[in-house]
């Protein structure tokens, strides 16, 4: 089972890549194509950034940065030898990295729930929405995991999130991080071992 996590293989179909190539090339002159690329990838990128930061307002800010940066540099994209999706994830990964660097420098990492998230949770619970309870339970469960992930170095955290939360294949993680397959596999393996140690130490996982 664990071997699957380290297996290599491209998940992107040729069709998707072709469609993206067509849209990206058109996007340099056409707002319609830009809108379509945005609609196609907004959900994925916002989810990835949220899993990395676990903060609603930071997620929105960083997602905006990603798409605005991609738009600014889209003319240069054709010289990059990676699919558009991987390119967007790479920008997002850099944004997240810079965010954590700023937080570290300012020593302002907060593991508390942000206020907007709390008030949103309260509103949802009051509304009696049956799925709200599940969603909040999922967030609570994730909070601990996220805390453990924050104990890891950024490079380990990134590959674990990409592999397990975003369901990326090793080949795609290589494209996103710009690392070789062997390096990614090794980072994933080491990161998982460290994460397991932390969770065992915290009593979340059995020894």
């Amino acid at each position, binding site marked *: 089972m664990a071997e699957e996590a380290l297996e290599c293989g491209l998940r992107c179909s040729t069709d998707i890549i072709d469609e993206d190539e067509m849209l990206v090339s058109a996007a340099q002159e056409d707002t319609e194509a830009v809108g379509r690329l945005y609609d196609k990838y907004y959900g994925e990128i916002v989810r990835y950034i949220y*899993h990395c930061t676990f903060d609603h307002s930071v997620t929105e800010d960083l997602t905006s940065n990603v798409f605005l940066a991609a738009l600014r540099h889209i003319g240069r994209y054709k010289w990059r030898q990676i699919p558009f999706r991987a390119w967007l994830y790479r920008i997002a990964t850099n944004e997240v990295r810079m965010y954590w660097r700023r937080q570290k420098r300012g020593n302002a990492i907060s593991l508390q729930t942000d206020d907007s998230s709390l008030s949103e949770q309260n509103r949802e619970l009051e509304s009696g929405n049956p799925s709200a309870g*599940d969603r909040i339970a*999922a*967030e609570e469960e*994730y909070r601990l995991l996220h805390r453990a992930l924050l104990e890891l170095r950024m490079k380990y955290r990134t590959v674990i999130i990409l592999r397990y939360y975003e369901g990326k294949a090793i080949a795609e993680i290589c494209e996103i991080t710009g690392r070789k397959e062997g390096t990614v596999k090794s980072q994933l393996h080491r990161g*998982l071992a460290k994460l397991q140690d932390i969770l065992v130490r915290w009593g979340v996982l059995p020894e």
Partner: protein
Amino acid sequence: MNKNIEKIDRYLKGAALPEHVSEQHRRQLRRQILNRIERRQTMFVRRIAWKVAAVVAVVLGLGAISVVGVNVGKYIYVGKDDAGVHIFRSEDAKSVVTLDDDEVTDVEQTRKDLEEIEFLRQQDKRELLKVEEMMADGTLEMKVHVYKYELSDGRIIDMREGVGGEFTLLREGRSQEWRQVKKAGPGEDLGTYEETVEGRVFSFKRERYFLNDGTEVVFSIGWPK
């Protein structure tokens, strides 16, 4: 080697992931991005040319515009309409070009540019960049080809040219409503198809929208493969 990470592998695979959902942010950012690129395109065109890129060739009570095959050489400046839009038409009145006020600084130069574009068009010295097709309740509302022209002084001009359709919504003054519906976000995805246009294969994406009165609009947009 992986025995020692089996526990964490299982744990991560079973973890319930939280989601961030904000329709408001999605829409705001979409608007911001599209506004920026529209501004950038305008500036780009202004730097190298006057803004014919924003020209929308429309029909002004003449029936569907048909640029293809029309033997027009000269353009006449008609004047401005009530909204301040400049109107040019071909001598045989079969082709009409409208330009916003800020897009015309020199009427005579614009008229000459249109004639040069017409000359290039007749020689087919142009590149088809995009095709748009709009069906309203099953009737072809409009079909537009976007061509790129390179003028003799090196300026690049994009021209939207209507090549068919009834233009019913336009005539009923509902084009603004349609633009708002379209700008609000993508319609229902009806899939993709390929079609050969002027000898090149284009990939089309088709989407369905509904206007306030229930009119079904199917909009297809195609780019060369």
